[in-house]
Every structure is written in C-alpha cells, then in structure tokens.
C-alpha cells in the first residue's frame, strides 16, 4: 500500500514538472497573438449590448445600408464587462469595440489595469458635446470616455389629487419638504413622502445637494460626509424617518411599495425620470388617471439652484483596441444623437435635441397630471457636476453600513455616516485613489 502510493506520488511529480515546463511555451504562444492595434476602414466591429438595445443596431444598419454585416452584436451581461476586459487584457485579444454600459462601469474600465476606453474628444465635435446633458459622467481626467444614452435624473413625484385634497402645495425646497412631512405625519398618518428602505436612498437623498460623496480630480478623490451639505440631509432624514412619512418598510421595488401604491398612500416620492412610466404606471398605480404629478428636484434654501442625483442612465463606450475607429465612432454618435433611435425609446435621451423629439412620446401619457417634460428637461441639466462616477460600488456599502442599522437597530442616519465614510475611504484606496477630505 505504502509503496504503491509512493510510486504514484513520483508519477505525479513527473507530470507536474512536465506540465510546468509547458508554461513558458504557452506564454510565448499567447503573447505572439498580439498583433497590436491597426486601423482599417473595412474591419467589422463587435458591439456588446443588452437585449433591449439590439434595436439600436438594427436601426443603425437600416439607416446605413453600407454597414450591413459589419456590426456584430453580442448580448452580454454588462456587470461582467470590467471582469471580461481584465481577462482579455490577460490574453491580449478579444476586446469588444463598442459597449453599452453605465458610466460607473466606464469608470471601472478606465483605470490602468483595464485600460479600455478610447478618448472620444477628437472624434465628437464640441457642438455635439454641448448638446448633451449629463456628459460630465463620461469625462474622466479631461478625457471623454463615453457618450450618454439616456439620463435617470431625480425629480419629485407626487400624487396630484391627494395633494389637492389635503390642501398642500408641492414643496420646492428640502426645508419645505421636511415641514410638510411633519404636517403629513400629524394630519394624515400612514401616507409617505419618501423611502429609506433600500440602498437607493443614497441616490435619492445624498447624491444631489452637493453632498461631497466622491469627486475625482486626477487620481485624488475628495469625500467628506461630515460636510454640512451631507449633515443637513442626515438631519432631515433623522427628523422624518421616526414619524414614518419616510418609510423604512418598503423600498422602491419592494412588494410593500406596490401595496402602498395600490392603497393610494404615496403622497410624494423622489424618484428617477423613468419611474413615472416604468414604476408608477402599471406597478404602483394599476390605472392611469392623470394622478402623477412631476415636480422639479428639491433644492436647499441656501443653494442658488437644485443639484440632483440619478438612478441609472447608461452610455456607450468605445475600446481603444478597436480596429475600426471610424465605424465605431459613427455608430455611437448616431445612436446617441440621431432621433431615429432614442427619439422613441423608453428613457429620457441625454442628447437634448433628441429629448425634445422624445417629448411627444410622454406628453399625453394619461398617468401624468400634466406634461412632465419641462420638469424632466430642466432636471437633466441640474445633475450634480461635483459627483464623479467612481471605480468602486458606493451603494452596497451604504446599504450595509447605513440603511441596515437604521432599519434593524433604529440607528440614526447621522450617527452612521462616519461608518459609511470609513468604508468608502477604504474601498476608494483599495482601487488606487488618493483620498482627501479637502475640497479641490
């Protein structure tokens, strides 16, 4: 028995040595595959999209018969995009040419390890850039790494008939929102004006209002949740959460929120631009009776204007490895700016001339109390420019370190922000940012 096992160990050792000796050969073989970037006007391009965005490619091909067969579309789970780029870097081939992804994913693939996006500034004219709203999200250290597809700017949704019935006027500032919240708690308990039951509360309350979550300049990330701009929001939440008007029982997408909607208990709810059509309509409100009012994002009295956040909103990015820059740039520019595609799609187009055409698709939607477009367009230009998209996930740690203790242990938001800050700093440093709490 023992002898046998010793023999097989020796066999194994031989095999391991043999296989080990193959490694250098494999490495050389792999590195030989790297042919380096070269431009060709005829090379086909690979585009990674989700199933919904296949239409963009079909419409581009219909509008450009010459490009037929040159665009190879692949449906990819884009949360895997940064990971796949790393693997492709390892084998030095296989990158897609164009990817549909959110700006935070673009941020992730723009560091030295991923080294993926192409700077589009030489290819996209200043005039076109100027007509985009929310393009700051695509700018990384002066480079333009993507073009925005759609925006998900926050606005304030309210139930117009209810507000009228209760005799309330729609707040325009966070101070009025807080005062009205206390009034609702007293006069109409059970109605809600916001939610703090999921990690999207970060986008709902802390992204706007110039709370310095994370602002990146070069490699330096400025974050300071102890800033008065964050603490004023924490204090508002700590006032309203115990009264129940900002619910901790149901997040946007919980069954509990649907119940509240069906019971007509949602008086107000800050939400993203797409929520009117895709959350309220059909889900929170089973029927459309012109009940949904859309008001401008709230501002703080002390601020000169509103600065709003977003929940979603995607972009198109191009690989710096692409063999056909011309086609890739032409495709991305056409898809984002030509009204043929985005003028009739689901979400608010980031390219404002296209948005004006998109206007018709929602102007007369019976879910809205009045045409929401002017408010949405204004809000699109009010996305907080001091908020940078970053290479780490700031939201899940907000869930673990703030929302969870608020819900399960009755903690205050103010007392948990420092814990969130600590995790955010550690995470930022782990992906290579120099962190500072001094404003740039």
């Amino acid at each position, binding site marked *: 028995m023992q*002898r046998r096992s010793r023999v097989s160990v020796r066999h194994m050792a031989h095999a391991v040595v043999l296989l080990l000796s193959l490694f250098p050969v494999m490495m050389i073989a792999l590195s030989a595959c790297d042919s380096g970037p070269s431009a060709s006007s005829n090379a086909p391009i690979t585009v990674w999209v989700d199933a919904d965005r296949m239409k963009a490619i079909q419409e581009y091909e219909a509008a450009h018969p010459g490009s037929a067969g040159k665009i190879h579309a692949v449906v990819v789970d884009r949360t895997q995009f940064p990971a796949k780029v790393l693997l492709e870097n*390892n084998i030095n081939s296989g990158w897609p040419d164009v990817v549909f992804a959110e700006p935070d994913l673009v941020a992730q693939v723009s560091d030295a390890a*991923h080294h993926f996006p192409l700077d589009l500034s030489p290819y996209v004219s200043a005039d076109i850039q100027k007509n985009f709203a929310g393009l700051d999200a695509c700018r990384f250290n002066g480079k333009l790494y993507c073009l925005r597809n759609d925006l998900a700017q926050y606005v304030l949704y309210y139930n117009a008939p209810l507000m009228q019935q209760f005799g309330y006027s729609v707040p325009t500032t966070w101070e009025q929102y807080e005062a009205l919240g206390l009034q609702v708690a007293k006069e109409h308990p059970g109605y809600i004006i916001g939610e703090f039951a999921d990690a999207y509360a970060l986008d709902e309350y802390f992204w706007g209002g110039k709370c310095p979550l994370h602002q990146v300049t070069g490699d330096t990330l400025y974050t300071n949740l102890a800033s008065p701009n964050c603490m004023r929001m924490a204090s508002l939440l700590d006032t309203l959460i115990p009264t129940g008007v900002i619910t901790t029982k149901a997040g946007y997408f919980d069954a509990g929120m649907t119940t509240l909607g069906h019971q007509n208990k949602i008086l107000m709810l800050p939400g993203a631009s797409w929520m009117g059509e895709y959350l309220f309509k059909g889900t929170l409100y089973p029927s459309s009776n012109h009940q949904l009012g859309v008001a401008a994002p709230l501002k703080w009295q002390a601020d000169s204007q509103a600065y709003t956040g977003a929940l979603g909103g995607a972009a198109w990015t191009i690989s710096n490895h692409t063999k056909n820059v011309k086609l890739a740039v032409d495709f991305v520019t056409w898809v984002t700016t030509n009204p043929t595609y985005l003028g009739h799609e689901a979400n608010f187009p980031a390219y404002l001339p296209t948005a004006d055409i998109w206007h018709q698709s929602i102007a007369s939607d019976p879910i809205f109390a009045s045409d929401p477009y002017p408010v949405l367009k204004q809000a699109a230009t009010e996305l907080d420019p001091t908020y940078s998209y970053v290479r780490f996930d700031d*939201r899940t740690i907000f*869930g673990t370190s703030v929302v969870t203790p608020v819900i399960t242990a009755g903690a205050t938001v103010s007392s948990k922000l420092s814990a969130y800050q600590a995790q955010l700093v550690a995470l930022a440093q782990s992906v290579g940012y120099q962190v500072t709490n001094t404003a740039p």
Partner: protein
Amino acid sequence: MAVLEARKQVAPSPTKTRVKTGVRRWLPTAADLFVLPYTLFLLAFGILPGVFALILSFANFSNGTPQYFAAGLQNYITTFHDFRFASAFANMFQFLLISVPFGVIGVTGIALLLHMRTGWFASAMRTIYFLPGAVAGPTSVLIFLFMLDPQVSPFRGLLTAMHMDQTIIVIQPSHLPLLFTLLGFFVGAGGWIVIFYGGLKGISTDVLEAAAIDGANAWQTALYIKLPMIRRYVIYLAILTFAGNIQIFTEPQLIGASFAYSGIGTISPTWSPNELGYYFAFNDGNFGAAAAISLLMVAIGLIGALAIIRATGFFRTDAAV
C-alpha cells in the same frame, strides 16, 4: 438499492487489500486503471490550477497584463493587509462554527431516526430528504431568495411571528451564518442522509438482534451500536463539510447580488474569503492577490482535514481500531 450498496463499497472504509511486498512490478494493475481517470482530472483541475495559482501569486498585474515573478511577496502582503481580510475570515469562521456541527449532527441524527422506522414511511422520507439535493446549487439559492422575502415567503407566518417583516431584517448581517447553514443543509443533507441510511442498512441484523436481546432500547441501539459502526462516514462527512464550507461563495455571492439589485444591501460582495479572492481578480484586476488568497484557502482546507484525520484515526485500518 444497488446504487446504495455500491456507494457503500466506495465509501472510505479501508480495504483489506494485501500488499504484495518484495515484488517490483511496473505493469498497470486494474487498480491503477481505475485510479487513472481520477488522477488525470486531479492533475487538470486540481494540481495544475494550483501550481498556476502559485505562479500567479508572485505575478504583478498593475498594468493589466501579468508580469511573472515581478511582485515577490507583495500579493501576499496586499492580501493580509487588506481591510476586508479580517471580516471575511471572521464571517467564514462563524459560518463554519455553526454549519459543520449542524450538518454533521443533523445528518447523523436524521439518518439514525430514519433507520429506527422501517417500511414505506422511512423510504418515503428518505426520498423527500433527497429531493432538494436533486436541484443544482445556484438554483436552490434562487429558490431560497423567495423564502427570505417575508412578502412572498411560504414561511411568512413564521417570519412575521419572529418580527421579521422585511427582507432586510431577515438577511441582516448577524443572521447570515445561520441562513447559509440552513441553505447548505437543505441542499446537501439529503444525499448524505441516503448514504448514511445505506451504511446503517449494511449493519448486520445479528448485531442489532443481539443488542435487542441484551435489553438495549432503540435510542441505546442507535447511540452505542449503530453510531460507532458508521463512525467513518461521520468523520468523512465532517471533513467534506469543512472543506466545502470554507469555500463558501455561491450563497453570499448570488443572494447578495440578487438583493443588491433591488437595493437591499446587507451582504458585502466580499463577505467570504473566496468572494474576496473573486473581488480581487474581477473587480480590482489583481489576479495575483486572488491567487494568494486561494492558496491560503487550500492551506486551511488541508490543515483542517489533516487535523480531523489525525484526531480521529480516520485512515487507521480496521484491525487497529
């Protein structure tokens, strides 16, 4: 039944093969042929990736492509000093502390209880226990997602009675080790119960009758007669549960990501060491640090298994027991 008998024979009861001493042969025996496929797979999917990980753990990935042997011990230092390292291992050890005893005692207990009953009831229960095991791991995690949501869970009555009316309360961090234990048990226990039951069936009726004649009741028979006779199965289960559970990944990863998608963030994407390794590789692009943490997991698994084997005399031959 044939399957069970076969399982019983491949189960690690040490064979009494006579070792032919003094004869040097290089001709492959039947045993060698039987071991060959396993050896090949072990090489391809065990040893080779392990060696590759060892090489990667000394590689530098800072510019996206591997520079072999450029990092020295830096990846190990990065891993040990990472701010998530301690919490990931703390989570894993908490999970082990609950899941290993729970799994071993639960499976053994249920198998012994089943064996006390005979007839259709035992066979029916055996099948029922086995059923969840027929569902692939990730699928069962997805089924579990529904069970954890008090709005739709079949156990919502129970959850509400425990004042857990929100998913976020059900899956709050302090509950996770127990939840993952329950999930693992739900999926994995059935197969082991069947194996143990097969083992118990193999106990000679003479022995059990003798025990009965000597006045042992059902519990005494179970504890003092049957349990010692399936002792090796129990140790084997303990080793495999330990080795499997230090690798916990699917449960926190899938449950965490699914709930994070709807904004419920209570499970860190680096909850367990394996997740931290995955995060190093596919979020930070540091395959070197990922390899370092993987090797650490291998070391822990080996040391754990060796400790159990030593403490229990698992490989001692029957004669020596």
